[in-house]
């Protein structure tokens, strides 16, 4: 199975319609990947869907407020026990 970063990258590419090369761990969603608030909500739903079979978790609004970069999503998922 693809590693965690690759799976998150694929979701981000699909949802934000960005080039895979742009999706680095430090990429900021609003500044680097041109996402707006609706995109980020949509992205969190897609991330929940992608990993729903591996852990019972939800990205709550207060979690989403701390998600600014790709690395933030990776850290959040690792904290749910997903690797």
């Amino acid at each position, binding site marked *: 199975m693809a590693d965690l970063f690759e799976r998150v990258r694929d979701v981000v590419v699909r949802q*934000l*319609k960005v080039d895979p090369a742009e999706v680095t761990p430090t990429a900021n969603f609003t500044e680097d990947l*041109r996402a707006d608030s*609706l995109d980020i*909500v*949509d992205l969190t*739903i897609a991330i*929940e*869907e992608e990993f729903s079979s591996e852990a019972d978790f*939800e990205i709550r609004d207060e979690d989403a407020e701390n998600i600014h970069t790709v690395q933030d999503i990776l850290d959040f998922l690792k904290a749910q026990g997903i690797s």
Partner: protein
Amino acid sequence: MTRALVTGLGAITPIGNTAEEFWNNLVNGVSGVTRITRFDPSDLPVQIAAEVKDFEPGRYMDTKAARRMSRFAQLAVAAAKLAADDAGLKLTDEERPRAASSIATGSGGAIDTMEEMQVLMERGPARVSPFYIPTMAPNMGACQVSMTLGLRGPALASVAACASGLYSYIEAKMLIETGQADVVLAGGSEAALHPLPIAALANMKALSRRNDEPERACRPFDADRDGFVFGEGAVVLVIESEVRAKARNAKVYAELAGGALSADAYHITAPREDGTGAAQAMTQAMHNCGLTPADIDYIAAHGTGTPLNDASETLAVKTAFGKDAERLALSSPKSMVGHLLGAAGAVGALAAVKAIHEDVAPPTINLETPDPQCDLDYVPLKARKMPIRAAMANGFGFGGQNGCVVFRKYEG
């Protein structure tokens, strides 16, 4: 008072994804009706439709922007861009507040409601798309056209069932005549291909069930007609003030002479059998343009292929035109394009404009067995080269909304 001219044509339809391809297929009698491919129609009584083929939103707009649009808005944006390109429309920042959009629709993003409802029921509220509301709203065709082309004047979105498309031209004419806009991107869009409306219209007995012969299913004015064919698509025309068009030496296809609207005040689906509501719109439309029945050479008929419509429209034309009804040619684009519902009136408008520009009346295909109740000249089977000075486009919607728009040759 400045005149309103047609200076650009855009179309994404079941018989062509440009106005030129649409027209060539229309004149050659090519049907866009096939077995439904978008979903498996096996358990539906009606398994045919007029689908738009090979539509790639990314060819016309940013793919991320497209993801936030319902298909009807994507089709509208694509048709509007094609029309703007055809017109060679270039707007300065100073001109943008006087550039408008008027994109009518029957059901807007109803298809998104059907799909998101399924998400809600099956996967719960947390999975519902945050884009659902600004995607499904029926004003979004007009708003997305405005956003994409930078039109900062009025953005209008008439909803009038199958007459909707024609309302956009009435509005465009009004905006230009009253000096509220110099350019209006006007038309209609519809994309609601889903088992739900097909099932509902089939149960209403409104749709043709000729599943084995899709190309022969829509047969307006024919004795064996058995209903209309559900379709999708968008048509947008650039309507421009004569002053602006002349100043930039624009190519002009025709003049948007005017039009009129009426309501049957009668029944939720059936037209008045004697066609008086439709006749009133036609008579008033001619009056509003300063024309008489003797001036009209061609009508792009509503011509749905339902038993009721075609008979009542025939009576309406006879009432409105008197003895000129026997002289003029009328035909139904729906025999080939299918019924694009909220975009159907705009399809008729495009057919009327091209008919004037090319001096050709497109045919009514599948009109093989004349119906005694339908005894006018419907240009059966083959297109006809003939002088066309002025042409009318008709549209009649469920609820009894009637729309009628007249175009005429532009002499400069």
